C-alpha cells in the first residue's frame, strides 16, 4: 500500500475534526467554515513542511483557534461595552494542549451525516453540505462536479446551514424511534451522489466521475459503523456492483453501451466479488429492503459471464419482490424487460400495458425506449422505430439520444419502407 496523499488524509480527517469542534463549541455553521479554512491551511503548509505527527490534532487546533477568534470578534461587535474576557466563558473550554485531537473513542461521522442529510433540507442542499462537511471537498470542487458556478454551490451550502440553524437542529443522534427514517434519508443522499457521478461517467469530463468514488467512500464509512444494517450493506453492494461496469459502459466516442453489449472483461472483478459477498451476507442476516433487492439484481447481471447466461427468471422474481415492497413505474418498466427476456417479448409488452395510463411514466422517454426495445424483440420493427423516435424526442440526455438515434438508423436500414409514421407502422 502506498502512503495516503495529503488530500486523502485531509478528507478522511474532515468529519472527525468537524465533530470534535461541534462537540466542544456547538455552532455547526461556524465550525464547518473553520474546518474548511484549517483544511486549506494544512494543504498549503503540509506541502512544504511535511505532514505533522498528529495531523488530526493539528487540524483541530487550527480550526479551534479560528473558531475562537471569530466568536471573539463577533461577540466584540455585539457587546462593545463589555470586555471580551467576561463574555467568553467558552474560553475555559478552549485551552488546548498539544495533545488536542478528536475524541478517538467515538466516531461522530454518523451524527454528522444525520445532520447534513436531514429530511428538512432540500436534496440539493443536503448533497452539497454532505460533500463538504463529511466529504471534505471544497465548494469549488463540488460546484465543478455539479457543473454550476461556485457562487451557486456556496449558496446551497449556506442555505443548508441556515436551515439547520433556523430549525434548531443539533449535532446529536436522533432518538431511537427516528433512527431508521433518518438513516434512510442519509442513504438516499449517498445514492443521489453516486447516481450523479455514475451517470456522468459516459460522455463527459472526468472531473465529475469523482462523485461515484466519493459516494462509495462515504457509504463505506457508514457501513463500517452499521455493518449489521441490511440496507446500508445493500446500498454499498449496489454501488459496487453497478460501479463495477463503469469502464465498459461508455465507448471511445462517449457513446452509451447497453448492458447486453458491454465487454464484460472490462468489468471490475474486485468490486463484483466484494459487492456479491456483501449482498449475500445481508440477504442472509437482515430484513429485506429496496437497496438489497436492487443489489441482488445487479449481482445476477454481474455474475453472468456472457449476456446470454443471465439468469432472467431470477431477475423476474427479484423485480416482483421489489414491486411489492417499493412499487414504482420505473420498477414495472424494468420488470417488463426481465419478463420479456425470461419468457417472451409479448409477455413483456403485456406488462407494459399496465403503464399506458400512468401519467407518471407514459410521457417519459424511458417508457418509449423500453417499449421500442420490446417491439423490436417481437419483430415489429416499424412499431419499434416509432417508439424510439418518441423516446429520442423526449430525452434530455445527449448519450441516450445518440443511442436511440443509432437504433433507429439500424432498424430503418433493415426495414426499407418503414419511416416510423403511423401509416407505415399500421
Amino acid at each position: 500500500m502506498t502512503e495516503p496523499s495529503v488530500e486523502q488524509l485531509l478528507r478522511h480527517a474532515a468529519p472527525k475534526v468537524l465533530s470534535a469542534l461541534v462537540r466542544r463549541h456547538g455552532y455547526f455553521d461556524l465550525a464547518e467554515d473553520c474546518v474548511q479554512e484549517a483544511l486549506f491551511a494544512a494543504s498549503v503548509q503540509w506541502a512544504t513542511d511535511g505532514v505533522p505527527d498528529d495531523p488530526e490534532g493539528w487540524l483541530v487546533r487550527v480550526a479551534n483557534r479560528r473558531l475562537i477568534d471569530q466568536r471573539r470578534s463577533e461577540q466584540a461587535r455585539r457587546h462593545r461595552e463589555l470586555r471580551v474576557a467576561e463574555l467568553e466563558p467558552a474560553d475555559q473550554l478552549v485551552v488546548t494542549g498539544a495533545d488536542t485531537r478528536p475524541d478517538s473513542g467515538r466516531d461522530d461521522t454518523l451524527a454528522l451525516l444525520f445532520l447534513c442529510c436531514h429530511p428538512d433540507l432540500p436534496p440539493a442542499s443536503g448533497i452539497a453540505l454532505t460533500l463538504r462537511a463529511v466529504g471534505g471537498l471544497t465548494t469549488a470542487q463540488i460546484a465543478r462536479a455539479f457543473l454550476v458556478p461556485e457562487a451557486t454551490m456556496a449558496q446551497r451550502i449556506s442555505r443548508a446551514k441556515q436551515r439547520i440553524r433556523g430549525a434548531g437542529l443539533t449535532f446529536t443522534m436522533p432518538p431511537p424511534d427516528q433512527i431508521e427514517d433518518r438513516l434512510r434519508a442519509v442513504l438516499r443522499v449517498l445514492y443521489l451522489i453516486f447516481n450523479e457521478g455514475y451517470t456522468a461517467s459516459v460522455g463527459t469530463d472526468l472531473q465529475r466521475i469523482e462523485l461515484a468514488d466519493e459516494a462509495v467512500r462515504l457509504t463505506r464509512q457508514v457501513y463500517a459503523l452499521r455493518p449489521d444494517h441490511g440496507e446500508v450493506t445493500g446500498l454499498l453492494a449496489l454501488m459496487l456492483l453497478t460501479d463495477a461496469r463503469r469502464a465498459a459502459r461508455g465507448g471511445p466516442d462517449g457513446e452509451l453501451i447497453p448492458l447486453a453489449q458491454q465487454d464484460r472483461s472490462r468489468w471490475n472483478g474486485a468490486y463484483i466479488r466484494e459487492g456479491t459477498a456483501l449482498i449475500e451476507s445481508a440477504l442472509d442476516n437482515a430484513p429485506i429492503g429496496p437497496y438489497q433487492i436492487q443489489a441482488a439484481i445487479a449481482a445476477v447481471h454481474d455474475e453472468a459471464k456472457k449476456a446470454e447466461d443471465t439468469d432472467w427468471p431470477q431477475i423476474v422474481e427479484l423485480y416482483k419482490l421489489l414491486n411489492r415492497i417499493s412499487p414504482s413505474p420505473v420498477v414495472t418498466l424494468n420488470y417488463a424487460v426481465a419478463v420479456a427476456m425470461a419468457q417472451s417479448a409479448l409477455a413483456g409488452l403485456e406488462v407494459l400495458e399496465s403503464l399506458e395510463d400512468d401519467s407518471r411514466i407514459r410521457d417519459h422517454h424511458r417508457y418509449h425506449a423500453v417499449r421500442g426495445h420490446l417491439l423490436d424483440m417481437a419483430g415489429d420493427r416499424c412499431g419499434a422505430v416509432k417508439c424510439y423516435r418518441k423516446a429520442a424526442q423526449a430525452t434530455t440526455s445527449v448519450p441516450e439520444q445518440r443511442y436511440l438515434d443509432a437504433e433507429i438508423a439500424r432498424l430503418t436500414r433493415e426495414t426499407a419502407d418503414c419511416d416510423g409514421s403511423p401509416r407505415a407502422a399500421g
Partner: protein
Amino acid sequence: MKYMLAIYSNPLNWAHPTFRHQAGVSDTERAMMQEQFDRLLEEITDSGELVSGTPLAPPGLTRTVRVGDQGVETTDGPFAEMKEQLAGYFIVDCESIERAAALAARFPDARFAAVEVRPIMDLSAGAEM
C-alpha cells in the same frame, strides 16, 4: 436539472429589465414589478437555483449569418422576424420543470410577451435502471 428561462419582450426602448419599458404601465405598477423581480432573483440566488443570467443587446445590433451556395450571407437583424424578441435568459438548476415553470410565471415579462422554459440537454447518460 437545468433549464433556460428565455425572456421574450417587445419594450418601447431596449433597456433592462425590459418589463420596465412597456407601454401603458403606471409608475406604481412598474415599482411593483421591480419589487416582484427583485424578490424572485433574491429567492433563486439564496436557494442556489440561479446558475447565470444574461441580458441581450438590442435586436437592431443583431447579425444573422447563413452559409448557402453563394458562401456566407450576413444580414442585419434577428433570425425570426417577430414583434417579441429574445431579451435575455436565465439558467436555473431546479428540482423539476414544474418548479422552473413556476419561476417563469413570476418574471414580470411573462405578462407582456412570454417566458419560455427550455430543459438543457445533459451530457450525462441517464441512470441505468
